[in-house]
C-alpha cells in the first residue's frame, strides 16, 4: 500500500535535524580543505582616518605567519560588486571603527590571532561623524526618497479632536546569529570556490565575481547549512573578499572566521531610529490622520534605510497620511536588512501610538483597531489579496484571555508584581520572486526517487523540509524518496532566504517543476490515462529509468494587481516587578494569517523565533556607540543581551487558515519576517497597562520602569 504523500501542511520535523544534532552538518568552516591557512582580521581603531603606514614587520616574523594582507599588497579589484560595507583594502583609508585594515595569514588560527596584535597601523585621524543624537538635526532627505503622502495630513491633524504626538526611539540592534560569518576561499587557477555562510547563494556569487572580474560561473558558492542570518548573511561583506584576496596572496586556501567581537563592526546592523508619530482621530474613534517621520543614519560609504513608516502607510485607512524620512551619513558600518526591516521597528512606533490614542479615546485597543482598517491598501488603492487582521485579533483575544485586562493601568497586582496586557498588530509584504528548480527522477521497477536541485539556502528554518514536502506531495512520492540539494551555486539559480520570499519562491518553483515533469512524462507515454497515473507508471509507460526537467518559475502578473501581506496580532501578558522595574513576559500570543502553511512545525518555530526577537527588541537588546571613538561599547554577548531561556515565557502560536491563490499559485505568504512585527509594541503596551508608565525608548530595561 502506498504511503501517505499528502504532506503539505503537516507538522514534520526538519529532515536535516538528525544531521545537525549528530554533528554531521557542515557549516562554512567545517569543510575539510587540504593545506588550509588561517586568516585573522586587524580592525581599525579609528572611525575616520587615512592610514599613513602599516608596519607588518613584527607580525611577519611571528611564528607560523605566512603573509600579512594590507592595502599595500592587496590585489586591485575589478569592481565594487555592490558589496555591502564597501570595497576593501583598495586605499589607505578608514571610514568606520572596526573596518578591516589587514589580515594576518598563518598556519594556525592562534598564530594568526596573536600576530594580528603585532600589526602596527599608523593613522592620521580625520573628523568623524559618530554621535547620532547630537547631530540628528543635520539629517537630510534620503537619496532615494521613500516618503509618501495622501490627503492633507497637516490640515486634518490640526483639526482633529483627539491626537497623539510622540517620538519613539529604538537603539542600534545587531543580528548576531549564533554562527558567526565565516568563509573558506579556495582558488584553482582563475576559479574560486567559497564555502561561505550565505542567505542568498547567487547574490554572493555575483558580487564576488564582479569584485574579481570573474564570470559568475567561475565563482562556486557552497553553503548547505547556515546557522542563522536574519539579514546579515543576505549580502557579501568585505571578509568574503578578504578571504579570497588572502588565498590568492599566499597561494593556499584560506579560512577566515569572524570573532563574535568582529561581528559588531563587520556585517551590518539595524540602525538607530527616531520616529515621530502623529495620529489623529474623531471622537467616535475613526482615524483621520497618520504622520510618521523617521530620522535615522546610514554610512558615509553608502545609503541604506529601513522603511519604518511603511506599516503606517498601509495598515490603517486614515484618509490623510504623511510618511517621511531623513538620514544622517555616519562613520559606522553600513546598516543592512535586519529581520522585518522597517516593519519591526516601525510597528513599535505605530502600534504604541495607536495604543496611546485608544487610551486618549477611552476605547478598547482591539475595538479601535477593528474600526480602522479596510480590505483595500490605502497606500496604493489596491485590494488586499487577503487580510486576517480581524480574525487574528479575535482569536488572539480569546487565547490570551483579554477579558482579564482592565483598561485602567496598575489595576492588577500579584505580590510584588504589576500585571498588564497589551496588543499590537503587524504585517509584512508577501512576494514571490524568480526561482529555478531542477528535478531528477530515477526509477527502479516501481520505485521512484526524486532529487531536487536549487540554489536556495536553509538558515536553520526548514527550507530542506518544505522543499521535500512540496516535491513529495506533487510527485506523489513518500518524503524519504525525495532528496533535496540546496545551498550550492552549481544548482539552478534561486531566490534567497530573505524578506519572506523564500518559501513562496522555492515551493512554487519546486511544485511547477514537478508538475512539468509529470506532464512531460505523460506526453511521452502518448497515452490517455483514466485514473491519474503514478510517476512510476508514467516512467514505465515512457520506458524511462531516468528523467529530468527544469523550470524557471516566475510570479504571476495577476499578483501585481493586489497588495499581498501576511498579517498578525500579538498579545502579551507582562509582569513588572513593582520594586525593581524588571519586566517579564510569561505569556505571548501570536496569531498570524500567512496563507498556506507548508509545515505547521517549522512555521510555528519561525513565528516563535520572531517573537523571541521581539522580546529582545522590547526588553534586552541595544548596541551602544561611544561617541568619542565610534566603537560599540557593547561588544560581546555579555554586553549585547539576546533573550535566553529565562527571558522567554510561553509563546502560543496560531495560524488563521487562508486560501489566497492571488499571492501565488500555492497561496504561500511567508513567515520569516512577520513573526517579529508588533511584538515589541505589544510588550510595551502591556508594560504601560501594568505600570501606567509609557516607555517610548527601547529597550524596557529595569531603570526605565522604576
Amino acid at each position, binding site marked *: 500500500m502506498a504511503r501517505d504523500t499528502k504532506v503539505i501542511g503537516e507538522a514534520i520535523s526538519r529532515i536535516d535535524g538528525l544531521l545537525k544534532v549528530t554533528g554531521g552538518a557542515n557549516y562554512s568552516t567545517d569543510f575539510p580543505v587540504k593545506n588550509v591557512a588561517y586568516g585573522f582580521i586587524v580592525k581599525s581603531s579609528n572611525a575616520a582616518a587615512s592610514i599613513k603606514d602599516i608596519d607588518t614587520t613584527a607580525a611577519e616574523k611571528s611564528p607560523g605567519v605566512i603573509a600579512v594582507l594590507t592595502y599595500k599588497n592587496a590585489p586591485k579589484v575589478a569592481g565594487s560588486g555592490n558589496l555591502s560595507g564597501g570595497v576593501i583594502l583598495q586605499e589607505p583609508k578608514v571610514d568606520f571603527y572596526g573596518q578591516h585594515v589587514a589580515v594576518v595569514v598563518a598556519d594556525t588560527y592562534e598564530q594568526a590571532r596573536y600576530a594580528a596584535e603585532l600589526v602596527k597601523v599608523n593613522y592620521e585621524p580625520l573628523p568623524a561623524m559618530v554621535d547620532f543624537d547630537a547631530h540628528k538635526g543635520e539629517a537630510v532627505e534620503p537619496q532615494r526618497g521613500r516618503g509618501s503622502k495622501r490627503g492633507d495630513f497637516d490640515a486634518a491633524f490640526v483639526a482633529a479632536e483627539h491626537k497623539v504626538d510622540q517620538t519613539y526611539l529604538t537603539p542600534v540592534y545587531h543580528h548576531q546569529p549564533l554562527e558567526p560569518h565565516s568563509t573558506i576561499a579556495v582558488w584553482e587557477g582563475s576559479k574560486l570556490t567559497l564555502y561561505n555562510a550565505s542567505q542568498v547563494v547567487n547574490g554572493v556569487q555575483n558580487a564576488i565575481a564582479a569584485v574579481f572580474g570573474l564570470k559568475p560561473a567561475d565563482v562556486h558558492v557552497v553553503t548547505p547549512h547556515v546557522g542563522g542570518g536574519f539579514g546579515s548573511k543576505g549580502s557579501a561583506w568585505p571578509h568574503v573578499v578578504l578571504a579570497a584576496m588572502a588565498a590568492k596572496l599566499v597561494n593556499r586556501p584560506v579560512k577566515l572566521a569572524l570573532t563574535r567581537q568582529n561581528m559588531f563592526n563587520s556585517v551590518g546592523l539595524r540602525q538607530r531610529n527616531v520616529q515621530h508619530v502623529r495620529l489623529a482621530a474623531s471622537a467616535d474613534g475613526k482615524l483621520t490622520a497618520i504622520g510618521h517621520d523617521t530620522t535615522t543614519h546610514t554610512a558615509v560609504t553608502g545609503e541604506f534605510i529601513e522603511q519604518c513608516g511603511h506599516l503606517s502607510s498601509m495598515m490603517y485607512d486614515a484618509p490623510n497620511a504623511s510618511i517621511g524620512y531623513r538620514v544622517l551619513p555616519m562613520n559606522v558600518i553600513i546598516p543592512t536588512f535586519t529581520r522585518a526591516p522597517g516593519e519591526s521597528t516601525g510597528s513599535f512606533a505605530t502600534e504604541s501610538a495607536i495604543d496611546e490614542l485608544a487610551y486618549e479615546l477611552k476605547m478598547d485597543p482591539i475595538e479601535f483597531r477593528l474600526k480602522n482598517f479596510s480590505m483595500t491598501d490605502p497606500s496604493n488603492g489596491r485590494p488586499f489579496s487577503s487580510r486576517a487582521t480581524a480574525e487574528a485579533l479575535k482569536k488572539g483575544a480569546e487565547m490570551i484571555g483579554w477579558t482579564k485586562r482592565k483598561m485602567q493601568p496598575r489595576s492588577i497586582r500579584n505580590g510584588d508584581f504589576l500585571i498588564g496586557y497589551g496588543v499590537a498588530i503587524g504585517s509584512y509584504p508577501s512576494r514571490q520572486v524568480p526561482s529555478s528548480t531542477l528535478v531528477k527522477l530515477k526509477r527502479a521497477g516501481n520505485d521512484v526517487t526524486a532529487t531536487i536541485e536549487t540554489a536556495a539556502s536553509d538558515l536553520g528554518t526548514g527550507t530542506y523540509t518544505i522543499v521535500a514536502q512540496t516535491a513529495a506531495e506533487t510527485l506523489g512520492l513518500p518524503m524519504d524518496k525525495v532528496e533535496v540539494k540546496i545551498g550550492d551555486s552549481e544548482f539552478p539559480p534561486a531566490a534567497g532566504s530573505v524578506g519572506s520570499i523564500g518559501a513562496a519562491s522555492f515551493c512554487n518553483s519546486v511544485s511547477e517543476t514537478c508538475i512539468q515533469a509529470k506532464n512531460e512524462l505523460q506526453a511521452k507515454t502518448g497515452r490517455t490515462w483514466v485514473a491519474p497515473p503514478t510517476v512510476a507508471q508514467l516512467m514505465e509507460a515512457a520506458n524511462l529509468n531516468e528523467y529530468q526537467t527544469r523550470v524557471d518559475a516566475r510570479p504571476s502578473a495577476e499578483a501585481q494587481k493586489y497588495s499581498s501581506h501576511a498579517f498578525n496580532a500579538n498579545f502579551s501578558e507582562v509582569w513588572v516587578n513593582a520594586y525593581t522595574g524588571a519586566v517579564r513576559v510569561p505569556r505571548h500570543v501570536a496569531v498570524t494569517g500567512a496563507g498556506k502553511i507548508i509545515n505547521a512545525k517549522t512555521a510555528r518555530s519561525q513565528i516563535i523565533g520572531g517573537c523571541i526577537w521581539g522580546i529582545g527588541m522590547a526588553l534586552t537588546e541595544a548596541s551602544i556607540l561611544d561617541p568619542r571613538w565610534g566603537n560599540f561599547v557593547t561588544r560581546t554577548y555579555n554586553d549585547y543581551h539576546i*533573550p535566553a531561556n529565562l527571558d522567554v515565557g510561553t509563546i502560543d502560536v496560531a495560524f488563521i487558515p487562508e486560501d489566497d491563490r492571488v499571492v501565488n499559485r500555492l497561496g504561500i505568504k511567508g513567515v520569516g519576517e512577520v513573526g517579529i512585527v508588533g511584538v515589541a509594541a505589544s510588550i510595551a503596551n502591556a508594560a504601560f497597562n501594568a505600570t501606567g508608565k509609557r516607555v517610548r525608548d527601547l529597550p524596557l530595561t529595569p531603570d526605565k520602569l522604576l
Partner: protein
Amino acid sequence: MRAFKFTPSSEPEAAVKAVKANSEAKFIAGGTNLIDLMKEGIEGPSELVDISRLNLTQIRSTSTGISIGSLAKNSDTANHPLVRRDFPMLTQAILSGATAQIRNMATNGGNIAQRTRCPYFYEVSVNCNKRRPGSGCSSLEGYNRNHSIFGFSDKCAAVNPSDMSVALAALDASVNVLGADGKTRVIKFNDFHRLPGDTPQRDNNLEHGELITSIEIPKSNFAPHSYYLKVGDRASHSFALVSVAAALELDGGKIKQARIAMGGVAPKPWRAYAAEKFLAGKTPSEENFSAAADSEMKAAIPLEHNGFKIELGKRAIVLALKRAAAGNA
C-alpha cells in the same frame, strides 16, 4: 593569544612554587575568565600552571562553620546539601550568575578572583588603568551605566562582577591562602578585594604566586531569613545592575542582626554597614527597610549614566530584606 608554557601540577606547594618562579605565570583552573582575557590580548601569561587536578575540591563542615574548597566547581558548591541547608543565600547567589555551562567549569577560587567586565577593560584600542596602568580611564567620561556608585576613584570605576562574592561578603567569609614560602594566611573577605585608589590594576590582595585553597564561612543563624536578589538587564546570564545579599537574624519579632552586601555598585562587594547598623534592634517592617536603604544609599555618587542605581539600589535592598524577613519556604 600569546604562546605559553603549560605546567601541570599535582601538589599545591609545587603549583605555588612554579608561579612564584615566573613573574609572568598564572594559575589556571576552570579558565572561564582567563582564557577569554588571553584570547583578546588583555592577559598574556608566558606560563599557565594547571591547578585543576589539585585536591582542593572538598566541601565540609568544620567546628566553626563550613569550608569550601577553592577548586570545587561553582555548580557543585551551589548544590551541595550543606550549603543549601546552612547558606541558601550562597546557593542563590551562585546560581544567579553566569550559565549552567560556565558554572560547571568555574571554580570558587576563580569566581572570587575573576576580573571586571567593564567593556573598556576588554577593548584594547582604548585606555584603561586596570589594563594599562597610567593610561587613563575610559569609563569615567564614557558609557558608565553599569559602573560604580561607591568606592571608585578617579582612576577606575569598574564594578566587581561576582555574585558569589556578594553573598560571601554578607556572610563574613574568609579566604585561606597558601603562599610561596609554604605558609598559609587567612584574609577576611572584606579585605580580599581592593578598592581601585591609585592602583586599579590590582583587584585583590593576593600576592603573585599566592594560591587560594579554601573559603570558610562561619556558622550563623541567617539561613531561615536570607535572600539574594539580582537585578539585571536580562533574566538569563547577565551581570548585575544591582544585587543585594540580605540576611536577618530575628529574635522575638526584632532584628537581632542584619547583614547586607551589594553587587554591581562598587569595585568590590559592598557591605552596607550603615543599613545593617540602622536595622539592629528594629522590627522587620518595610518602613524600617526603606529607612535603612536610604541611610546606605545617601553616600552614593552617581556617574553620568548610572544615577538610576541609587533608586534601584534602595528598592533592591527593601525587596531583598522583605523576602529575607518572609523566610525561605
